[in-house]
């Protein structure tokens, strides 16, 4: 029998997944991050990237930037579920506004000698990555950009002796003079 496995799944099959970046302004108090993360794991939503830091110390406000995937209906659910949490001030779908800038910072450690070292430096220059640590056999590069650029850079470093990567996750802000 071709029955759907559960009533909940039927709706999801038709709509393709979308990736959205959400900016969530929260009261900076104990447990607030656990609440947000718990919501995602508890309800089976995806987290692709999560960035959190206090942004206005005086007002005890923190900004959480979450990159998530889901059907449009699920994305709407995620926003509503976040918005109804008591310490959440505001949820802005940065992807939906179509007027946002997204950046990520990565530190990339590459180990190698000879031609590989030269090539790594040359590519770093092309990607505007900075050298922030160096030994005779390694570099640590700092690179800023959108997720695609960083992925591309890391892919290029792989054959040149990529050792490890540390990434901050995505931060996003709207273009123009208005605040969130």
């Amino acid at each position: 029998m071709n029955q759907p496995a559960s009533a909940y799944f039927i709706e999801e099959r038709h709509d393709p997944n979308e990736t959205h970046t959400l900016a969530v302004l929260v009261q900076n108090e104990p447990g607030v991050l656990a609440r947000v993360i718990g919501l995602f794991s508890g309800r089976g939503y995806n987290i692709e990237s999560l960035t959190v830091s206090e942004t206005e110390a005086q007002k005890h406000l923190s900004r959480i930037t979450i990159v998530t995937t889901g059907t449009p209906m699920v994305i709407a659910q995620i926003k509503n579920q976040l918005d109804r949490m008591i310490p959440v001030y505001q949820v802005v779908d940065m992807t939906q506004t179509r007027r946002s800038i997204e950046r990520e910072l990565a530190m990339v450690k590459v180990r190698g000698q000879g031609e590989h070292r030269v090539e790594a430096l040359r590519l770093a220059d092309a990607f505007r990555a900075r050298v922030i640590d160096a030994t005779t056999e390694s570099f640590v590069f700092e690179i800023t950009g959108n997720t695609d650029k960083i992925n591309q850079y890391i892919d290029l470093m792989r054959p040149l002796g990529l050792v490890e990567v540390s990434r901050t996750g995505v931060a996003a802000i709207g273009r123009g003079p208005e605040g969130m």
Partner: protein
Amino acid sequence: MSDKSHDPNQMTGAAMIVRALIDHGVTDIFGYPGGAVLPIYDEIFQQSEVQHILVRHEQGAGHAAEGYARSTGKPGVALVTSGPGATNMVTPLTDALMDSIPLVCISGQVPTHLIGNDAFQECDTVGITRPCTKHNWLVRDVNDLAKVLHEAFYVATSGRPGPVLVDVPKDVQFATGTYHPPRKSDVHRSYAPRVKGDATQIRKAVALLAGAKRPVIYSGGGVINSGPEATRLLRELVEVTGFPITSTLMGLGAYPASGKNWLGMLGMHGTYEANMTMHDCDVMLCVGARFDDRITGRVDAFSPGSKKIHIDIDPSSINKNIRVDVPIIGDCGNILGDILQVFKAEAKKPDIKTWWQQIAQWRARNSLYYKKSNDVILPQHAIQSLFEATRGRETYITTEVGQHQMWAAQFYGFEEPHRWMTSGGLGTMGYGLPAAVGVQVAHPDSLVIDIAGDASVQMTMQEMSTAVQYELPIKIFILNNQYMGMVRQWQQLLHGNRLSHSYSEAMPDFVKLAEAYGGVGFQVHKPGDLDGAIQEMISVKRPVLFDCRVASLENCFPMIPSGKAHNEMLLPEQANDEATAKAFAGGKALV
């Protein structure tokens, strides 16, 4: 110079808790003492404004508080100790979250310097209860306690109501600080539930309602939570429009079961007419309900031809399971008032005579039919007898979970809101007995009956002792078929009649059990003895266990097999082996 020791607002954390309860009008709380709440119990001992009901298990305190809240519209309060006290509250908290019941739980915690040390009776209470509360707090400073307590009451009772928990370490209970009465600034500025509906959406809704040819109103627990005004307005809307109305399990009583527009409950065990009306309607007005999977059945076949209006105070309920055309976010009482006002000013009652004729044909199928017997009590008959015997009295009904719960919803006619306490969302077996305790505390002179199943009632039976201690004359009306009836029904329908562990081999003697607790026991086997025994039960002013022996293999119909549409329901007269096998084919994986 003010002398701090004479400042009446200087007090210990434990005293603040009792003071806050009084300031929020709390007269009764349910709890169980333990090491980490002893300072609070000491304060309770030294006052008389708040009555404490000692339960026998913390889960009982939670459900009693839920019953209290559901039957009064006021928040229920539970007090438990750290560790196991708090973990035993997880079920009632989750239950209250699913059914939007305002509950304030205060839990003790080990002293702050021991938190994180795996101390005796320590657990991460706020961590454990985070996903099962609307919000929770750990108070580390006694000077934050008053603010948090006031906010807790506000959060529990405003917007979409729900359970909250305040975890108070023992040293904070002992410490002295400054108390202040409730004030507006106690609440997070980020929390501001919307009450008033959008005027444009309301006009759109009225236009749809006025143009409807085959309308239906589908109401839920939100109407009851909103308060008496919402119930009044819902009834007026039905009167003004002449529309048929059905309700979820949680919404029973908002529109009277004796009302002429009443279709009965909808959903998995709803009536044929309610489900067919939902399926074939052209305009659906959903008021304070959430398109739960027990209501919708198969979502892609749910009411395919209708425009849907959805009134809900929680934006996350909108478009969660079912896409709607006109969402209106806000308090349903407020919005119903606005809809009525616009409708009365600009629209007239649509002519839906042919729709009512169609509904009359569905009604004529008599989907709640069952065959009475002279030899054995049918559970449906037992509920009907109970209903007839208690009609006209102020009666409150609680239930456990299972077949008896569905039969109670089908056969007990509720005329008023707040009279029906059941675990709808979570489906908690063992809810009904402690809930009845809570209801009886709130309504000492009313008749409070827990319609129970023999399996469910044994999950929280210990609260009989609470009922006896506080002279709460609750009536536990057990439909005893010696099975976990609903489990068995699904095993029969979906698992080849292999009745795996759904039969109770060693049933206690409920009459002796009642007597052992200090209550009164009844046992009835014959249909002829039923009415007399029920009358006798009602006249007894003590807690009663009523062992009503019913037909052991009766099943609950009508039924929409899960994963099927509203127009694919199985009616009682069709439920022979072949039709049943066909209806349930392939549905095994569903819940």
